[in-house]
């Protein structure tokens, strides 16, 4: 008799826990938004999943960014799919790119912006009372906002140098119409994360960085 109570109590706890996890998972989700692309690279590449139901795991190799690359800019576009049944925000944190030599590639040398918000299929939620807000200064295509500073170096409206700790780059109302517990092909929004690097007389070496995109409950705005 006592064993039966323990068993049912345990099962009930597991069911509640599973239900809670399911609810959380369908509330906020970030995934691949499609195949990333790269242009202007010499010896570079980008890998990621073409499927919007796969996790966002992208590897960018800008390739050669010394003057040996005679292209004006190396540009990478990474589509990111977002799903939520509640207001959300997206933050980015970065590790790496800590070259001590100021003439080597720095965080400020990698342009970074968000562009091209669009529905991911028919189950993406269109809200009339709130809009999706790309936070300042990230609402730009860095390939188009690149300028040459007084020191001759290329700078951007926004770059990885604009990130400080976990930086919110995007927020808005709910993204999905349905409450499916599964990641689906057509139930959210897609944004393009755009990265650029202009070949320059950087000090020689290899630079690397890792960005973590995180979606979480955002400011409580109506849909």
């Amino acid at each position: 008799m006592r064993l039966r109570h323990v068993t049912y109590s345990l099962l009930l706890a597991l069911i509640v826990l599973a239900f809670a996890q399911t609810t959380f998972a369908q509330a906020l989700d970030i995934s691949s938004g499609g195949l990333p692309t790269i242009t202007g690279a010499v010896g570079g590449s980008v890998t990621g999943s073409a499927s919007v139901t796969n996790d966002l795991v992208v590897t960018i190799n800008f390739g050669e960014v010394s003057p040996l690359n005679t292209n004006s800019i190396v540009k990478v576009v990474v589509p990111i799919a977002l799903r939520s049944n509640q207001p959300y925000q997206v933050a980015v944190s970065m590790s790496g790119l800590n070259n001590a030599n100021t003439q080597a590639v720095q965080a400020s040398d990698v342009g970074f912006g968000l562009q091209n918000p669009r529905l991911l299929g028919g189950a993406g939620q269109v809200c009339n009372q709130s809009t999706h807000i790309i936070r300042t200064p990230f609402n730009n295509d860095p390939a188009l906002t690149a300028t040459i500073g007084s020191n001759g170096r290329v700078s951007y409206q926004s770059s990885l140098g604009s990130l400080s700790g976990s930086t919110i780059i995007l927020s808005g109302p709910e993204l999905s119409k349905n409450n499916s517990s599964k990641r689906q092909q057509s139930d959210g929004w897609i944004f393009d994360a755009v990265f650029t690097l202009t070949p320059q007389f950087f000090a020689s070496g290899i630079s690397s960085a890792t960005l973590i995109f995180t979606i979480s409950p955002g400011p409580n705005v109506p849909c």
Partner: protein
Amino acid sequence: MPRSKTLNLIFLITLLMFSAVTCLGQSTTGTVSMSATVSKFVEINSGGAVTLAGNSGGGVTTDGVANSPLAVSINLGELGPSNTNSFVTASVPLKLRSNAAYVLSMSATVTSSGASSSKIGAADVGFGLGTVSRTGVGVNAGADTNATSGDPTLAANGSVNGTTGRYEFTAVRSNLNAFSSSTTALSGPIIMNAVPRSNANGLTVPAMFAVKPQFFENGTTTISVTFTVTAP
């Protein structure tokens, strides 16, 4: 435990596992990893137009064009005593750019049609690098080492040999005989800061050549000079 309850338990556990798998299909984080490579880069181009002076006849056949590949051709004209100028000189501006420490080397060949020791030889062609200039936006300040003796026409760099009467360029690396094989002429630290290649600035230095008109054996002479910049 009765068999029916065991089956129910297995069924529920299966449901929970399925639910867990479903949960694993979603994520609140994504990762973008990136890398970039910067290789050592050096280049030499023309620093501008050639200046030819003291010549009798001759001229600049193919002139230098700033920021274009260096491919200059010069006719020094008459180098016998009928040219009464003290020197025939040619100044060829060079422009160097790099994202690393550099070494500028030079090799030269001198070929004359004459048959005697009075024909023009490599030692009769004076050479030196002039003042090095690192100016302009994006150019890194740095101290360069000029391995030549500078302007070959300077009195300190040459004189008439008291025994033979022939004019000689006597200073260190002051004539092309010192460059019969690839020899360092100039070296220094990084030239350019992190600026795009479209930035036209760089290190400029004139390569100065000089011949003293003398009673050379008559004939024609061809002088060929190759500059090479490397990032060791």
